[in-house]
């Protein structure tokens, strides 16, 4: 523990990088997953292609994806993009399923009622389908966020910042306290992010907890 207090500034710096490297991909991945998930919820063909593809993506080890990304998209080896892109891919792979399942679970008679009232498709999606899909979507988002926070550490292996740096440095210099600092940082960040999303979810879906 002493390492954190003695290296307060460094710890904050690492935390900021870690946060950025994990939150940015979640946001991008989430935004991408909504239309893709919507497509998958509407089309059998889309599901048949997207779901197995997403599963395959998940089986690729994150280190392999991080190492191969610069080769694939042609950026420098130390660029943060190398972590962000793979994590976006993981987030999309995870969220597409959550979004698609959540949208498919919107009750048929509610959808029919919305159509019968005269909603146009975009408005119906934004004000009926998507809000109703929020509880499941946010549950998926929590999983994606926590797993991203843990995966960002792998970026240290290709020289990027974040708590992973504390692991590699601590390991090389036999400084257990430094490794522990990285571990504590990861866990606390994951718990905080998860708690925050839980809270936001509750505020956004007050209806989901009544009358049951």
């Amino acid at each position: 523990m002493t390492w954190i207090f003695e290296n307060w500034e460094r710890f904050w710096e690492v935390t900021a990088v870690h946060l950025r490297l994990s939150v940015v991909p979640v946001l991008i991945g989430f935004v991408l997953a909504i239309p893709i998930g919507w497509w998958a919820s509407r089309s059998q063909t889309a599901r048949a292609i997207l779901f197995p593809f997403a599963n395959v993506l998940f089986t690729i080890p994150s280190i392999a994806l991080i190492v191969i990304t610069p080769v694939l998209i042609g950026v420098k080896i130390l660029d943060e993009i190398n972590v962000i892109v793979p994590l976006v891919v993981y987030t999309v792979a995870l969220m597409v399923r959550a979004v698609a399942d959540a949208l498919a679970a919107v009750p048929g008679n509610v959808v029919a009622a919305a159509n019968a009232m005269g909603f146009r498709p975009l408005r119906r999606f934004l004000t009926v389908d998507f809000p109703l899909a929020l509880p499941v979507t946010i549950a998926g988002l929590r999983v994606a966020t926590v797993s991203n926070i843990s995966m960002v550490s792998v970026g240290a292996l290709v020289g990027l910042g974040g708590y992973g740096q504390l692991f590699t440095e601590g390991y090389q210099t036999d400084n257990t306290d430094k490794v522990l600092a990285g571990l504590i940082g990861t866990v606390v960040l994951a718990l905080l992010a998860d708690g925050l999303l839980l809270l936001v979810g509750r505020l956004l879906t007050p209806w989901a907890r009544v009358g049951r």
Partner: protein
Amino acid sequence: MPGYAERVKVFGIYIQGGPIGVVVTTGGIRRVIEFRAVTKRFEDGTIAVDELDLTVEAGTITVFVGPSGCGKTTSLRMVNRMIDPTSGTILVDGKDVLTVDPPTLRRGIGYVIQQAGLFPHRTVLDNIATVPLLSGWDKRKARTRAAELLEIVGLDANFGKRYPAQLSGGQQQRVGVARALAADPPVLLMDEPFSAVDPVVREDLQNELLRLQAEFDKTIVFVTHDIDEALKLGERVAVFQTGGHLAQYAKPAELLSAPANDFVASFVGRDRGYRTLTFLHADVPVHPVTTAKLGERVTITDWTLVVDEENRPKGWLSGVDGEVEVAEKDLISGGSLYDGTTLRGALDAALSSPSALGVVVDGAGAVTGVVHAGDVIQALAKARAAGEVPK
């Protein structure tokens, strides 16, 4: 909570552009719905509706009834283009619905769906305000209107802030009706709206619908598979047969007295003779009855009807000798009351009464006399001779 009549009066002022003057009223516009040779064949080859020719009269409740899968929902949904016909034409007020953009068409046609289909994430008030908001009303006006509707369908104002999951099935159904009425559409489509509630609540909702209809003069198409509901609500009833055929389209009494084929005859049921009584308004002589008030000293000779201060029936008294004081504890509770409308009511009152005398009441519930079962049977015989009863 105000009584029904008061609520309607409030609404009556309201739609005439009264105190708040926000409601776009349809002001007596009466829409006819015509199906002309309408066929719906789904992609898998199922023929859900087969050459349907039918006119729904303006300002009436028309009921589509028939067994499951006979094409009732499909027929209904072709009116607001949730389903488009394979061939044929549907006209609303003379206009081919296929020429109208579906969302626009639908905002002018109320739709009540099975099990209400309320938006679970919106409060009751917001649910009701849906169509006005879609049609571009401002928020406050839409909410004022929604609050009015809540009252019209008989729900307390504090239900407005609840979510649908906090309502009973019957209350949700009322909200469903309010939501459909919110933009004051001249046409209302209702798909088995009352099927998921218990019989007592269902009867309540049915009566409420009849009163709403009497007041607001909508053109209502009502789908059900319950023949009793169909006969009760429908000014005209369309009986569908499996395969999407219209078997018969007639007034309820005619369905009972002259079913077009065996299918209709069996669908309207075995006790259709008894049901027919519902639609017969023959004269049954009303006889005088001895009445007494609570606390009075009377000499009981025969069945005596005990009434309250307003002359409303409280129960029967019998079997005591000589002069007695009429006491609550001695009362034998009576059967159903006959309001002077249908033969079925008269027969039921006579048969269910402990004295075999059916109590007749007026609109205020005051006793006007009694009927005898024998007289009802005689009236039935007369009606039969006149050909009004099924053979």
